[in-house]
């Protein structure tokens, strides 16, 4: 005979400002390989959205094709998602973000999806400053087609099969800075704290955020001769700074340390606190950022953190001077010219 043991009261899960628990930000179960770096990124998107009290129903998730592009199914089920075609995620984000400018847009792509087949769309989305967090889950390899090199693979890097990459890599971060992107960051799926801070800042930013996350492929690119293996990245990760993000609503409460910490203020009043580790790195200096990234790449390092920030650039809906309400739900009264107006047009053609 068994007796019921009195159970300790289950503590209520913590809630954010909207009254949601972290559970409200999860998605379906991941079907990626166990230990995949992408799942760590998914976890930080969930954490950052929860902690930033993001309204789930306003989130839209876009992707192209590849392992990374499957991940929008794994976070924020309250939001809509659009898993499109290979390399075309940016145009999907463009159309939807114009149709409804109140959406919070998250694009998840990979190094193949963005730096090869989708390079054209990446470049132009950044140029237009589409309001979106553009995450590149960067493993230097095509996972879903079983391990071919991608365009971010380092020259001389080896495949599991032994094949050597003969071509230089494309770096999404320097490219994004070159294109005028106002929020460029790099992180590592094995550095959750840094990734979390960057994502929270990204949620508060208004234009395109380019976030390159080195995310080792445990199945096809985690061997000793790879420059995208966990070990290699851990050994060569060079965080630029300790990053803190303070939401506009918290600004009053949080004491910002003086001295070494630089503060960048967003239009909504949120602040990013940047405490430098790398001496002399100035994340608001576009040319300096380019130089520092190039120098570190030459040394085989991954410089991570907020590489460049300029929060003043208007996103596309502002450039186009769109009405404040979503275009998608405008009424016929605003959209359809009157019979008198048609008559006027016809008269001019007579």
């Amino acid at each position, binding site marked *: 005979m068994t007796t019921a043991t009195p159970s300790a009261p289950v503590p209520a899960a913590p809630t954010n400002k909207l009254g949601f628990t972290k559970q409200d930000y999860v998605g379906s179960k991941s079907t990626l390989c166990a230990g995949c770096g992408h799942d760590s990124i998914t976890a930080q998107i969930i954490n950052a959205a929860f902690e930033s009290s993001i309204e789930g*129903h306003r989130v839209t998730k876009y992707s192209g094709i590849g392992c990374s592009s499957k991940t929008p199914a794994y976070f924020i089920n309250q939001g809509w998602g659009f898993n499109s075609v290979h390399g075309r995620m940016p*145009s999907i984000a463009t*159309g939807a973000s114009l*149709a409804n400018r109140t959406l919070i847009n998250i694009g998840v792509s990979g190094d193949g999806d963005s730096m090869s087949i989708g390079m054209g769309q990446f470049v132009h989305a950044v140029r237009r400053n589409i309001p979106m967090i553009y995450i590149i889950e960067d493993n230097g390899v095509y996972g879903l087609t079983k391990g071919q090199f991608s365009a971010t693979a380092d020259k001389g890097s080896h495949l599991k099969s032994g094949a050597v990459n003969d071509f230089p890599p494309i770096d999404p971060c320097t490219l994004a800075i070159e294109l005028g992107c106002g929020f460029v960051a790099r992180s590592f799926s094995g550095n959750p704290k840094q990734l979390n801070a960057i994502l929270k800042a990204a949620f508060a930013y208004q234009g395109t955020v380019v976030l390159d996350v080195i995310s080792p492929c445990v199945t096809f690119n985690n061997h000793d001769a790879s420059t995208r293996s966990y070990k290699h990245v851990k050994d060569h990760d060079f965080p630029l700074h300790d990053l803190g993000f303070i939401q506009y609503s918290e600004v009053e409460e949080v004491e910002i340390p003086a001295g070494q910490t630089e503060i960048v203020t967003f239009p909504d009043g949120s602040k990013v606190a940047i405490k430098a580790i790398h001496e002399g790195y100035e994340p608001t200096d576009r040319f300096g950022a380019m130089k520092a990234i190039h120098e570190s790449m030459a040394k085989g390092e991954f410089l991570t953190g907020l590489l460049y920030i300029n929060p003043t650039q208007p996103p596309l809906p502002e450039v186009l001077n769109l*009405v404040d309400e979503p275009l998608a739900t405008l009424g016929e009264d605003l959209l359809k010219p009157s019979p008198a107006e048609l008559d006027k047009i016809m008269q001019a053609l007579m």
Partner: protein
Amino acid sequence: MTAALAAPSPAGGAKTRINDFSIQVATVNGSGSQTANTVLLRAIFQMGVFVSGKNLFPSNIAGLPTWFTIRASAQGYVARKASNEMLILMNPETAKEDIAKADPGALVIYDEPLQLDKLRSDLAYTPVPFQKLVTASCPEPKLHKLVKNMIYVGVAARLLGIDMEEVKKAIAKQLKGKTKAIELNQTACMAGYDWAMENLEDQDHIKVVRDNKTQGLIIIDGNEACALGALFAGVTVVGWYPITPASSLVETFIEYADEYRKDPKTGKSTVAIVQMEDELASAGVVLSAGWAGARSMTSTAGPGISLMSEFIGLGYYVEAPGVFFNVARTGPSTGLPTRTQQSDVELCAKCSHGDTLHINLYPGTMEECFQFSYDAFDLAEKFQTPIFVVTDLDLGMQNWASKPFTYPAKPYDRGKVLNQQQLAEVKDWGRYKDVDGDGIPYRSLPGTPGGKGAYLTRGSGHNAYAQYSEKPEDYLEVMDRLKRKYETAKSFVPGPVFRNQGSDKGVLAFGSSDPAVIEAQDVLAEGGLKTDYLRLRALPFTAEVDTYVKEKKVVYVVEQNRDGQLANLFRETYPEHATKFKSVLHFDGYAIDAKCIVDQITAFEQK
């Protein structure tokens, strides 16, 4: 002036052709001749005479030969006519060839130094000292090249008997408020007219006589008519990429949107227009904007549709609305980008990989370009799918006389979209469930509050609940439903238009072939062959089309491509009637004319 300028008279004492002739003007492109030709066309139109214009221009900015044909027709025929009664030859490069091709008896106005009058003896020549006249009438040497063409308008007006007041009005209309340019051009035109009055005897070969056939009509091109349709349909997102002959559709839309699509309270724009980096991105913008609830469109030509086709397959399978204008040109490849053809019929009917079937609208008149463009947005949202509006260069870029458009009073049909409250009430909602048995599911829009209705759209296999699935039964359920949805569309697309003469012989055509078919039908009837003409206006084929195909003994399918693409669709849809369909084809890049239809049908009949 002593010039022995013979007053040309009709060869063989033929009757004067009143309001029934064609003029061909040969110039160099980039010389301003488009303005002069449009003025001449407009002046005849203002004289109350039915008129149409065809610009045969090169794929070039300046310096290559270009021809403009103006046809006046008392009977209202507006198709291209292969023969011309008047030639105006301003291009030294082509003048000799133009003379060689001229129809016997034609009046030839030409630039005097070209000395063409010795080439053939069966033409009536009128050399004009253009340089002398332009020097005398225009003080600005820089502008000589541009206004020189206006002089031939004056000369032609004199010979044809066009009222110069109408010409002046046409110039003012064409140059909309540019006072200095209007004055300059009117002066040049008058100089040509005065010179002709002084130096030329009148002719009675062809004449314009004031009529009342064009009162209350407008002149417009199809791209502008489509742009207006989209404007009134309330398009809110436009993603596009320039391509001849489709660019002016969006460019005209932009001009109208500037005036008519601003929120009166804030002055902010109610439409987003983005010139994308290519056609692929344009298609992405159209489909995702449609998915998010906007009315979206793009305008392109065949090569653009090819680039968009991967996305269009996605749009079909995930059921995202969007309107795709295809202003077709002569393919394949770059082909003849400034010439017309109807060679994207099969491309648009089944665009993309896998099994895909699309709703296509085929406007054949300016009023239909307007109305079908308006309707396309309703159909896109109603059927949650890409819709093609297929025109061509002939419809899209040429000038057409038309009745003014009727106001589209019918309210927008935004389709089966569930709002927050409906989502809260509905039990067991599935994005791809066929609740009503018409194949059309219910959708929700991103951003809808309330915590219900979110789903992940995916181009990979999915079930009725939009969940990932590789199960055969789930795949079949979606594909069969999509076919059912296409069947439903048969009752909602525009049916055909008939022009019956009481015959068991059919002529079937669509789009820009219409004027030539009407004229051919009349010519054939005069020769004793009556036909019943069906003008197809949409895919899928409606019930009336079924009946027609079953009833006719033979169906001559007239189309402007090499392979008989529309006839192929008919043979595939009606295999038991496959042998009835005979292809009447025209595909050299010029607009189709009645004679080629009459000749081909006559040849079939004689077999």
